[in-house]
């Protein structure tokens, strides 16, 4: 049961996360001083990386 829920969660988190990155890839133009395309790319990928790590960590600790 917990494994099924984990798989569903992983599909939702990773699938939607990748869709977010794909849909916002073209929106990385720096808007103001203090923003660069590098930082914009970092902000775009950071939540996805965190989510993937969270799913992996959950699989690791799953009872």
């Amino acid at each position, binding site marked *: 049961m917990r494994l099924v829920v984990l798989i569903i*969660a992983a599909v939702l*988190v990773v699938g939607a996360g990748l869709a977010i990155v794909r849909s916002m890839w073209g929106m990385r133009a720096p808007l103001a001083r203090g923003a660069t395309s590098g930082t914009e790319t970092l902000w775009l990928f950071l939540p996805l990386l965190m989510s993937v790590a969270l799913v992996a960590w959950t699989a690791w600790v799953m009872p």
Partner: protein
Amino acid sequence: MDRLGDAVSTAAADAAAAPRGILRDLIVLTKPRIISLLLVTTVCAMFAAEQGVPGGWLIVWTLIGGYMSAGGANTINQYVDRDIDAVMGRTDRRPIVMGRISAGGALAFGLGLVVASVLVLGFLTTWLAAMLSLVGVALYVGLYTLWLKRTTIHNIVIGGAAGAIPPLVGWAAVTGDLSFGAVLLFAIVFVWTPPHFWALALMLERDYDEAGVPMLPVVYGEEATRTQVLLWTLVMLGTTLLPFAAGAGVIYLVGALVLGLPFLWMAWMLWRGDDTRPWASITFHYSLAYLALLFVVVAVDAVV
């Protein structure tokens, strides 16, 4: 003589009302309505950390310290943002903008609250909780308000980390450390923030535009924002399932689904774009109740 008497009594009433007015303005500066939701996540995280009911005084001191910490951060935020608050209809009646509280006075009040919160949490709960609350202030003021808010469309995504700190504070106040359960609660608030805030931004698009704040709907329009609300709601729904996979009970799983599926439906209706404003309002207001109730479910699941 009657006129003189009226003038004297009016002056006396004004003098008596002035301290009450200042006190009210100071409370307004802390944004008590926003803090109430943060404190719900703090207390419920304490129940989860304890796997039962934490001590009453521990809850009281954590709430007081948490209020002062968040209140201090909110006050400093209004000091920094007083220029854009003045041009936004939602914020143009705030105490600093209206001149009822001086900018310097507000900054001193905010910094004082932050210092006091560290002392209260440190001496009366745990020093880890105190340090985490300080990290929350740094993220909100430094990362979000001073850097990201005016420079990137990802402002509320990354800045959402600040609002996700309170569950960590609550957890650390009970155990003195952080475990995976605390990380999951942090993540839930973090991924809840984009659909919550972008729904609000859809309602206040013109305000943000006039203030020059690069919120997503201002820069890339409503359609892009509606899509992001839906996608982030899916990420949020998936993230809320992780605690069950990690060991939470069936009560939590049922609660997460019962609360999360209506959120997804609202995000879907918003994404369709037939009535953006009404659905943005519905999604935003539901998101507030959603987070509070989800954390109540976390607490109930821990106690039962």
